[in-house]
């Protein structure tokens, strides 16, 4: 909950998007607001990582998320909570990916996978001769670094066969997006819990 937005520490590479920011920033929303004052909006440091940290982005996401999950609630039968939770998760991911505007591989992967092309995403032909000469052999012989890179590639959607620099780039953006997702959903949950519990001050008297 303690934010340290440092503009000095962010790296400016040719695609400078790294904004070192909140660690527990996804805990509360007012810290997000506080962040906004120090936000490097408009500067060269805010590219992709910074995008996910703006309050505007989070609000847009929250609004779209609300629409999406109310649709989920309406459409799905009051079945197992697991299913509904999963549906909410997928809706949240979908909205998140859409917010990425297709600029990143992970967002595109999520958007295409939701259409049911999940198999295609996962069953790509293993190219053994990719630019890192990854050995599809025994993992024991693989240096732990490469192995971890591979694990990372599995965690970020659609980034299994990516080269290392690109993978890190995608991972960076993905992490920032995930953090925003967590922030937005947390705030939303708190709102809902609040309005659900104390329905006097917020809800209109006549429903």
């Amino acid at each position, binding site marked *: 909950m303690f934010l340290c937005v440092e503009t000095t*520490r*962010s*790296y400016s*590479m*040719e695609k*400078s998007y*790294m904004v*070192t920011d909140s*660690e*527990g920033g*996804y805990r509360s929303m007012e810290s997000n607001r506080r962040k906004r004052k120090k936000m490097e909006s408009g500067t060269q440091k805010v590219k992709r*990582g910074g995008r996910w940290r703006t309050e505007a982005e989070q*609000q847009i996401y*929250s*609004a779209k998320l*609300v629409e999406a*999950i*109310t649709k989920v*609630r309406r459409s799905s039968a*009051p079945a197992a*909570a*697991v299913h*509904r*939770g*999963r549906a*909410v*998760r997928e809706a*949240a991911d979908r909205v998140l990916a859409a917010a990425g505007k297709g600029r990143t591989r992970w967002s595109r992967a999520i958007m295409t996978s939701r259409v049911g092309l999940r198999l295609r995403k996962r069953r790509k032909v293993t190219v053994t001769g990719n*630019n890192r000469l990854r050995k599809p052999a025994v993992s024991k012989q693989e240096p*732990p*670094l490469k192995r*971890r*890179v591979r*694990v*990372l590639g599995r*965690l970020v959607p659609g980034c299994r066969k990516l*080269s*290392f*620099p*690109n993978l*890190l780039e995608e*991972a*960076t953006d*993905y*992490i*920032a997006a*995930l*953090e925003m*997702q*967590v922030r937005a*959903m947390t705030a*939303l*949950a708190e709102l*809902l819990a609040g*309005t*659900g519990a104390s329905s006097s001050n*917020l*809800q*209109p008297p006549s*429903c």
Partner: protein
Amino acid sequence: MSSRRSRSRQPGDSRISDDQIADLVSKLQQLIPEIRNRRSDKVSASKVLQETCNYIRNLHREVDDLSDRLSALLASTDTDSDQAAIIRSLLM
């Protein structure tokens, strides 16, 4: 790290130098709260990657938990359209 990129960072590199890897890893390092808080510059690349994976997994899990919570919360409200309108007005 600095903004000087004397190395050409092309995705089509056939061989990525160790320096390049270290460079990228250190950038990633700044994102991971755990590592950032330790204020140590000597975190190994392997550790950074490991913490990155853990962090992403944690975020995934958190999103899952939040999804379950949200779905439960939504289920408990009757007037979902009202809720949506309220929330939207609160958010905007």
